[in-house]
């Protein structure tokens, strides 16, 4: 789960909180953003269709011109509100994410981590009108009224393409709305607090020499292997460690015993590395000779 993917450092921005602690912010990539947008569009179209059908049946069920007029009025205003304020409404809330962004674990923030104002949210979403809705409606209208007009469709596609590919042309993956509003879209994946691994370790004695075989990098890799508990990987890692520290061990091919051994070694190694850390010595990996 929390498999530690080597972070693509190009997309990580450091935010220093007022308390002076740097927090890494991972910018969303173009694919995630496109996915979130498509989801939102589907939800938007879905709600428009649902509202239309609902009002249609209400108007059918309650005959009379007054209901018809009320239904049409509601439909016009509802459509306007949905189209223009769906994104704004959700992004202005404390979560800063539309349902689509929520599904993909994205949220909108002010650039460099300042306060995100309502104005920015309005500005970035007003631009959707030009980026996406205008060419889409243009194309639909052409198809509906004049049949297939190649020129208009081509124009619409070209127009959309300019804005569509804009995020790929800058380092921060910003679309036009983000440029204008000074916003970033970041990834905020839900990370649960995983159990403490060293708590389950059995008492096993390791010599200092055995523990000095590895550094922080290997420790973190080991943590990942134990947490995933994928039998073949556990067996391989157990074999490798035993070979390196020259210790005999009864392997059960990645079963309970190997896992217990890894946990014991992990706890001991972490204890030793953390102790060194207190004296300001950080051993990056097994090649680090300091």
């Amino acid at each position, binding site marked *: 789960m929390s498999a530690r993917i080597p972070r693509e450092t190009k997309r990580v921005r450091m935010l220093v909180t007022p308390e002076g602690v740097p927090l890494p912010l991972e910018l969303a990539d173009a694919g995630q953003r496109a996915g979130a947008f498509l989801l939102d569009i589907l939800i938007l179209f879905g709600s428009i269709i649902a509202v239309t059908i609902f009002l249609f049946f209400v108007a059918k069920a309650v005959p009379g011109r007054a209901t018809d007029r009320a239904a049409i009025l509601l439909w016009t205003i509802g459509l306007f509100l949905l189209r223009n304020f769906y994104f704004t409404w959700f992004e202005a809330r404390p979560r800063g994410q539309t349902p689509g962004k929520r599904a993909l674990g994205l949220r909108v923030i002010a650039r460099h981590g300042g306060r995100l104002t309502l104005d920015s949210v309005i500005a970035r979403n007003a631009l959707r009108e030009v980026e996406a809705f205008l060419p889409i409606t243009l194309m639909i209208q052409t198809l509906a009224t004049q049949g297939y007009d190649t020129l208009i469709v081509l124009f619409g596609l070209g127009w959309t393409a300019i804005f569509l590919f804009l995020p790929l042309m800058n380092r921060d993956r910003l679309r036009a709305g983000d440029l204008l509003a000074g916003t970033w879209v970041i990834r905020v994946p839900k990370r649960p607090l995983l159990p403490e691994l060293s708590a389950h370790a*059995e008492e096993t004695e390791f010599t200092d020499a055995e523990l000095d075989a590895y550094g922080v990098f290997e420790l973190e890799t080991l943590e990942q292997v134990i947490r995933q508990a994928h039998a073949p990987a556990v067996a391989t890692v157990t074999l490798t460690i035993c070979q390196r520290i020259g210790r005999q061990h009864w392997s059960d091919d990645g079963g309970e015993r190997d896992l217990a051994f890894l946990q014991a070694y992990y706890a001991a190694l972490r204890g030793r590395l953390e102790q060194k850390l*207190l004296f300001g010595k950080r051993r990056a990996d097994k090649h680090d000779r300091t």
Partner: protein
Amino acid sequence: MAISLPFRRKRDAHLPDDERPPTTRRLDPLPSAKFRAEREGDWRRLEELLGRAERRSAAALTDEELLALPTLYRATVSALAVARETSLDRALIDYLEGLSTRAYFFLYGVRGRIGPRVRQFFRHDWPAAVLALWKETLASLLLLAAGTLAGYLLVRADSGWFMALAGGMSQGRTPDSSTQQLRDVLYKGGTDGLELLAGFLFTNNAKVALLCFAFGFLMAVPSTILILMNGLTLGAFLALYANHGIAGELTGWLFVHGTTELFAIVLAGAAGIRIGWAVAFPGRLSRMDGMAAAGKQAGTVMAGVVVMLFVAALLEGFVRQLVTTEWLRFLIGGTMLALWLAYFYGPAGRRP
């Protein structure tokens, strides 16, 4: 694989199986594990409060919980700083980073109740933003006036221009219409379906205004063209009615809502120009920062423009159709204009 195993594998049947060390005693917890055990409760509490506050709103928390939130956040952030220095539990650091980020954006992000924010918008932010755009507003107004004049002169010279300039807005009015027909449009009141008309006009005008604003991004060129075209259409209508000698009546008809609506469109154009200017001539700021600053200011103006258009649609849909007395129409339109001017350029926007 031809490597010799330095340890015996279970499969080697000739070797004894029960060499497992009998020690199942637990280790003394690591200092970092103790550190975690002592603080885990706080983190879980912060996570729970955040979850509740984000799902609904800050109102879902009691006062006591709201007060606890910043304290818990600071505790978590400082725990993160300590953990980075002393702990090598990657999962723990990842968790703390995630939680701190969430809490940070809850505390420093968009927040606050909607009521005070709306009040602040009307009392200060909106007029101040409009006031700050006065130069662009003037430019936008001049463009509209130039368009109107051009449209007027063109149609006066050759009424054949009318259809080209007014296009879909003509609602059956053509240069061949009789004076009576034209006059009817202006004075035939009635309340039939007015709310529909108002709703339609509002959404339609809001769309035009949003486009004016959003197009500013393309160095304001499309925005200025949109405003010019609005002016041309207006001028064409004036000329058509002037040809029949009833331009004054048309002005009264337009005046009721026009002062509000045209003002709103001029402001939207001004917002677009402001952005276009920031893109083209960023000055001392970086282009990105300049654009962001302009975008925010213009965003505030745009939120107000939508409000103005709503008012204009109400005036257009109801008042204009119900009030057919000419001097009353001028009075209403004039009053609206005076109110807007006093609001935007009066003391409201200058207060700190």
